[in-house]
């Protein structure tokens, strides 16, 4: 398939994915490990955003507590590591199971509510977990816990090597994207999509929407928990701050920024979010005056507000509009 067949949206997505695949090469050539650092965080958070998008974009469940699952995943690496247990084949299933269980219990309650109440209660549960970890002195309380050794996979892959960790994360992202793609288009996906549009109608058609939504909530939590294990290994450090509600807000924003309900939107959103976070500060120093960089969050906030107000459909929506414009111009050209 040639690039022109893909359209602008498709081309940008392919380009971003190829770039992501080549980041380690880029980092090696330029001898700048910082690129790899940013990209690893990007890929892991993109995975978390994709999982959030499954319930938010496809299922219409706006959760402000999704970072809880990142925290559960990271602590599932950190706590065993604290007891010198580094086996990833134990840590990862533990993370997935613990996340799924937390999602099942909290989701069962959250999904009894709708709208703003749902947002508040997902946030409340995440904050409960936040304060639970703050209060556990054994695991560092709010100072957090250093992870000396990353997840080990019996010599299969060595995560102490940053490039290996990166590629594991990148391949995981691809796998999650494929999984979510299948789910969204399956019968199950039809049900949660329909319930997003008109839940009562779905019930009168014969669907117990609650059960399907709860299942989607559990799947999203489990995926995000897995992403959390990689983040724990990557940062070599965990703290309750990872599951603070503001972190959930960031995930939410990545999804909105990229385009809710689109497969690659959250990836683009995570990329844009992290790049702004990293480069807005030096850019401001350069453009305005020395020291302006520390106020980067101010312009960051303005950008976020503008996107929400005018950027209907986020980045993917914007690319779609470009495609439409191009098609119209093409059609005109043929007249």
């Amino acid at each position, binding site marked *: 398939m040639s690039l022109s067949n893909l359209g602008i949206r498709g081309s940008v997505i392919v380009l971003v994915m190829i770039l992501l695949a080549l980041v380690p090469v880029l980092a090696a050539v330029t001898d700048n490990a910082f690129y790899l650092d940013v990209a690893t965080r990007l890929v892991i958070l993109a995975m978390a955003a994709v999982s959030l998008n499954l319930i938010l974009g496809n299922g219409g469940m706006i959760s402000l507590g999704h970072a809880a699952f990142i925290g559960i995943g990271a602590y599932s690496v950190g706590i065993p590591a604290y007891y010198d247990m580094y086996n990833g084949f134990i840590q990862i299933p533990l993370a997935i199971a613990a996340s799924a269980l937390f999602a099942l219990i909290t989701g069962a309650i959250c999904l009894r509510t709708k709208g703003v109440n749902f947002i508040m209660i997902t946030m409340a549960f995440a904050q409960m977990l936040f304060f639970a970890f703050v209060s556990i002195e054994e695991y560092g309380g709010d100072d957090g816990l250093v992870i000396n050794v990353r997840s080990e996979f019996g010599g299969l892959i060595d995560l102490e090597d940053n490039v290996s960790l990166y590629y594991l994360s990148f391949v995981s992202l691809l796998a999650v994207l494929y999984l979510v793609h299948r789910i969204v288009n399956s019968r199950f*996906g039809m049900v949660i999509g329909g319930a997003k549009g008109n839940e*009562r109608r779905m019930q009168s*058609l*014969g669907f117990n929407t609650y059960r399907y939504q709860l299942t989607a909530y559990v799947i999203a939590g489990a995926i995000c928990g897995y992403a959390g294990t990689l983040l724990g290994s990557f940062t070599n450090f965990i703290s309750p701050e990872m599951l603070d509600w503001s972190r959930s807000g960031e995930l939410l924003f990545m999804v909105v920024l990229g385009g809710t309900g689109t497969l690659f939107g959250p990836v683009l959103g995570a990329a844009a979010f992290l790049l702004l976070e990293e480069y807005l500060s030096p850019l401001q120093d350069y453009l305005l005056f020395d020291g302006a960089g520390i106020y980067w969050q101010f312009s960051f906030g303005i950008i976020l507000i503008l996107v929400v107000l005018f950027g209907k459909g986020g980045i993917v929506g914007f690319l779609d509009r470009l495609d439409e414009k191009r098609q119209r111009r093409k059609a005109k050209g043929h007249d």
Partner: protein
Amino acid sequence: MTDPLLQVTDLTKSYGGVVATDRVNIDLRVGEIHAVIGPNGAGKTTLISQLAGEQMPDSGRIMFDGRDITHQPTYSRALQGIARTFQITNIVHDLPVIENVLLSVQAQAGHSFRFWQVARTDKTLIEPAMEALRRVSLGQRADDISRYLSHGEHRQLEIAMALAANPTLLLLDEPMAGMGAEESARMVDFLTSLKGEKTMLLVEHDMDAVFALADRITVLVNDRAIATGSPDDIRNNEDVRKAYLGDEES
């Protein structure tokens, strides 16, 4: 005589002291079209909502096909063969027309905890869905986004969704609402063609349609069923004339 398909006994519902359904009794025979008429605010839609399970009665009993469904949730009634249409179009507006119908087929096709195969190209779903759409003459609109259909087409889509569930009982809440004379006439023809195949409870304001279609009619006035009988019985019933039909029929 065989047992009625649906038997409603002393159904009562009130909202904070305001009575909406007052000891209503109705039974539906297999295969009949049973119309429920009455002035605005007589409690017709409330009655349908209770039959469909969207609202729960305070007391009384609903028997369907020999089972007590009074306290069952909406979705399990739908799975047992009760489908309803809505007075105000109630569909998933963002989905293509075909997918609204497909969801109705899917609901009846076992559980949907199937996460892998693509649903919208599944022949076992798409074929019955297309057939239902063609039956209501919406086949050529299958791929359009539902929100862009005309009012009349929305009404047809509602019917297609109900039919696609292959129900034994159809609850039709003003299927002709807001339709022009020609569209109404076509809907009457269509519902006539379903006669005998489906048992129907029809709530409708269009009296011509009601008297053309109904085998029996129940009249609701002030939340109570004041009379039930054949169209002729109802036409000649003094109470009904006084309470409702009034000048229209004289």
